[in-house]
């Protein structure tokens, strides 16, 4: 077979079938290009959440936060319990030294 054979080349070109493009092909292509180039609207929120999630999953951060929360909660609870016990003792004292019969 001679590649320089013009007649043969013309025959081969004619025999190659060219498929028809789907409807609105060009418009769809441009739309997809525009969509790909446009910035995603929730990118910043997504990255913020992901950063938070990553931080929370770090063992040292999680342990430190849990420790702070437990200690702070316990201290505040002890303080509140002390105040409540003090109030109860004061009420008991008043009931003892000034019973309703004397008021």
């Amino acid at each position, binding site marked *: 077979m001679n590649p320089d054979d013009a007649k043969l080349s013309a025959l081969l070109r004619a025999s190659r079938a060219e498929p028809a493009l789907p409807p609105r092909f060009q418009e769809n292509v441009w739309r997809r290009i525009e969509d790909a180039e446009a910035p995603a609207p*929730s990118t910043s929120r*997504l990255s913020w*959440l*992901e950063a*938070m*999630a990553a931080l*929370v*999953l770090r063992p040292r951060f*999680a342990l430190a*936060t*849990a420790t702070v*929360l*437990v*200690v*702070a*909660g*316990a*201290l*505040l*609870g*002890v*303080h*509140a*319990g*002390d105040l*409540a*016990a*003090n*109030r*109860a*003792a*004061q*009420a*008991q*004292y*008043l*009931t*003892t*030294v*000034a*019973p*309703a*019969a*004397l*008021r």
Partner: protein
Amino acid sequence: MNRSLAIVLGALALGVALFSGSYLVGQRLCQVCVTQSPGSLDWMRKEFHLNAAEMGRIQKLHAAYLSQCNLMCRMVAVKKQEVAAALNSATNVSPVAEQKLAELAACRAQCQSRMLQYFVEVSQIMPPAEGRRYLAGMQNAVLGFREGTGQPVSEPAGHERHP
């Protein structure tokens, strides 16, 4: 995104649960440990910043007053019974009932006077500023005064007899 959101929300919920749990445990443990025996004056030492000598004098005063207070309560109870008896048999307020009511009022006034005297004596043992605060709080709680000088003592529900 959903996974990240779930992790962050889960961590927040866990944090709230840890804080609340330790708060409640701390509060409960403290209440159990600090609960004072009836008649204990430890709260007074803390509230009014008293030293051991002041506390000793107040405890003596308190013990002496309590025995008198018991007697006064019995007197008031007797007078109340007399008033009830005088009112029970009559359809109107008889002179006898009026007399018994006057006696009850006089007895109450005498007891209140002794009680206020006790508060004054206790306040005089305390440092001046604390004594004024104690006296104002007691008068406010017992007589309903509104002095506005600090009210360390809340008014409890009263009772007719001493424990």
